[in-house]
């Protein structure tokens, strides 16, 4: 470990959002000439901590010193003045401007722009660290990796000595990642302090000098990379299993319900989101899907629901009554429904994809039923009764059936959505982060609902982020990593560390070893 003053030292940082404490007395030291990996599960407080350092949040308590001097960071502008630069996961670039224009945006200086001089300075920075940027290129013409390079040059141009990169490799190909790592090493040798927020253990092992681990908003420990291994890091990251006591009835008479075979999906930019995903979901069982966020969970559910056109692979539904096989490839949600596939989907984005925030409970219930019936007028009575029964049965806390759903709290919104979805007596129920943002009681209500459906013989696919919950609720757990299935384990008796490792490491055959 380094001696001397830390470039940045954070002490006893506390930040709470309402009742949720995102950072609870966190300490962190960042040294010049070092690459520090900040590791932790989703919701462990990594990004919050770095957002405090980059002026987006103001801490409730604690001290931050830069080069031994205590500072108060109140806005992104203060941060630049302190020589700190953050590269966010979602780029902050203006599409129609050039790289150079984006880089100098908002900087003080002469009124007249001398873009040639700016371009020269950019090329100097590029030459120093081994980037390649065309200052005159428009951002809309750039690949994701080029945009990221512009973001990094932007903070360097402003004289940053401390760089924070929030999951920089999440959007990069392995080759681009290699290139980025070479640049990061050059910057480290130049005496810059670099913080890398990441989930990927093999990258931590490859690039970092030191690892700081956060767990549930607290310091879990610090390791020197060369003296540790992935198992120890995982251990520190996930901690000991907590017993939650969620009921888990044995599956009754499981039969294949949905067969997914070698499903591959690319997004609009051609980046692989799902890579040869194959699995079978059985009736009467809860299939959990675990993975770091953005590893293809959302895309997987959306593809099954018919929201993405299928390019390769197949999704087959097996009708419970007849055993008839229905190929769902290329069908949209309406066609899937009209074939008699009773699919329910509780999406991650409740008020965006699931419900209409400005409409009341009754109208939201109608979203599933407005096409029924022959009359030109919609039937409002059935949905109103349905809304009333959902409110009564799931004890939704609402002033009335005519309240716009956006006024309800997160847990109640989720109950309305789940209530509507299970009211159509589905044979397949897919939920994405069903308990995100819910308190303990609401969470248990949702688990109970899922178990009820399971006992009715529904095939439940449960995408979750809390490993403890997945391990207690699910009969089997499919682990996704970077769009690939890195394994399917039985929920009973599964080892948390083992699952954690699978989440952060690709399967054996896909691990790319670096030659650098």
């Amino acid at each position, binding site marked *: 470990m380094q001696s001397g003053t830390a470039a940045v030292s954070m002490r006893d940082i506390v930040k709470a959002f309402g009742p949720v404490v995102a950072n609870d007395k966190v300490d962190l030291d960042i040294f010049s000439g070092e690459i520090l990996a900040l590791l932790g599960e989703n919701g462990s407080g990594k990004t919050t901590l770095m957002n405090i350092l980059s002026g987006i949040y103001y801490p409730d308590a604690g001290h931050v010193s830069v080069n031994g001097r205590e500072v108060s960071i109140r806005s*992104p502008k203060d941060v630049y003045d302190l020589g700190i630069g953050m590269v966010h996961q979602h780029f*902050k670039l*203006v599409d*129609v*401007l050039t790289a150079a*224009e984006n880089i100098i945006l*908002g900087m003080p200086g*002469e009124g007249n722009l001398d873009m040639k001089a700016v371009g020269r300075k950019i090329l100097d920075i590029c030459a120093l660290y081994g980037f390649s940027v065309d200052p005159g290129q428009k951002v809309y013409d750039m690949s994701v990796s080029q945009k990221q390079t512009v973001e990094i040059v932007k903070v360097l141009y402003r004289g940053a000595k401390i760089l924070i990169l929030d999951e920089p490799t999440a959007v990069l190909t392995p080759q681009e990642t290699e290139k980025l790592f070479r640049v990061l090493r050059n910057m480290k040798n130049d005496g810059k302090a670099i913080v890398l927020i990441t989930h990927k253990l093999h990258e931590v092992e490859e690039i970092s000098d030191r690892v700081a681990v956060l767990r549930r908003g607290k310091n879990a420990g610090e390791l020197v990379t060369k003296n540790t291994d992935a198992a120890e890091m995982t251990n520190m990251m996930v901690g000991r299993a907590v017993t939650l006591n969620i009921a888990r009835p044995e599956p009754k008479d499981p039969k294949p319900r949905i067969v997914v075979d070698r499903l591959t999906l690319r997004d609009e930019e051609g980046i692989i989101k799902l890579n040869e995903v194959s699995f079978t979901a059985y009736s009467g069982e809860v299939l959990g899907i675990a993975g770091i966020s953005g590893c293809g969970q959302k895309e997987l559910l959306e593809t099954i629901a018919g929201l993405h056109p299928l390019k390769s692979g197949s999704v087959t539904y097996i009708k419970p009554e007849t055993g008839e096989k229905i190929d769902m490839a290329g069908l949209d949600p309406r066609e899937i429904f009209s074939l008699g596939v009773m699919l329910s989907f509780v999406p991650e984005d409740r008020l965006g994809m699931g419900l209409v925030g400005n409409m009341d409970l009754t109208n939201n219930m109608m979203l599933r039923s407005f096409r029924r019936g022959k009359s030109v007028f919609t039937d409002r009575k059935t949905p109103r009764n349905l809304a009333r029964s959902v409110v009564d049965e799931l004890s939704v806390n609402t002033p009335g059936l005519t309240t716009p759903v956006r006024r309800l709290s997160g847990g109640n919104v989720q109950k309305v959505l789940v209530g509507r979805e299970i009211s159509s007596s589905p044979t397949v129920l897919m939920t994405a982060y069903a308990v995100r943002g819910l308190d303990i009681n609401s969470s248990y209500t949702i688990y109970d609902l899922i178990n009820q459906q399971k006992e009715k013989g529904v095939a439940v696919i449960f995408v979750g982020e809390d490993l403890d919950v997945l391990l207690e609720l699910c009969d089997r757990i499919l682990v996704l990593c970077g769009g690939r299935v890195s394994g399917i384990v039985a929920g009973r008796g599964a080892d948390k560390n083992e699952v954690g490792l699978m989440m952060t490491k690709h399967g054996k055959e896909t691990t790319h070893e670096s030659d650098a």
Partner: protein
Amino acid sequence: MAQVLSLLQAAIVFGTVILFGAVGEILTEKSGNLNLGVPGIMYLGGIAGLGGAFLYETSVAAPVPLVGLIIALFCALLASVLAGFIYSFLTITLRANQNVTGLTLTIFGSGVANFLGGAMNKMAGGVGQISVSATSSAYRATFPFLSEVGVLSSLGFMTYLAIVLAFIMSWFLRKTRKGLNLRAVGENPATADAAGISVTKYKYLSTCVGAAVTGLGGLYYVMDYIKGTWANDGGIEKLGWLAVALVIFARWKPRHAIWGSYLFGVLFWLYFYIGGLTRSSQELFKMLPYIVTILVLIVVSMRRKHENQPPASLGQPYFREDR
């Protein structure tokens, strides 16, 4: 030949009104504010200029044209900046809907202007009686060395001012740091905010200055186009909407608005120089500027070039917390 010359002159005078409107509106829209109050601001600028000049000319025995010019200019700028400020306060600070606010401003401006115009006509002795001949003559005075040059022989100084303003605007947007910051605000206010640019300040300033330029169009219309009189015939409103169309036609580039405005002028007056048109077939020809705008929109949409698109955040309010 004489006919072509007279068509060009009419086109330039016509074009100058909408060029002011378009240049002002381009500046406003570059900050992400879609101000549909252009006709209303022109009305307010025009009536304020006329009112100032009218009060001056009726209160002194021998009005000095230059003084009338300055008073009218000052009143017009003040009124239009005020209109821009009202729009800014509603849409930026109170985050009211931009379309509704703009349209309301147009209705408000035309109502106020036509009411005051009618009142002043009455004070001057009856319908069509108002005249600010001294001030108007100052606005219509030609440069002595240009009076022999065919097309330019009858053009007042504001014709040239409009072109100069368009070029300054073009230079400002493309070549200055503040112009770059402004474009960033209109394209992606969250990014601009994160880069330390005051989104609110840029939006306010560009909307108010844009309104001032737009208001000059109304002043020019009153002082030069209808020669220092007033008519409640909706003439300004018609030109105001053409200015909005011209912004789209010019694809938010002030230098393209210059030739675009004269082209609109030629297309608009064409009917006058084509023989044998009836009253109704004239109206068909008057549609030409709008048809050309629609064609430009179609072509631009089909080519889908990023540079030809409106500012990305046009019409959307900005909340910092809304990220």
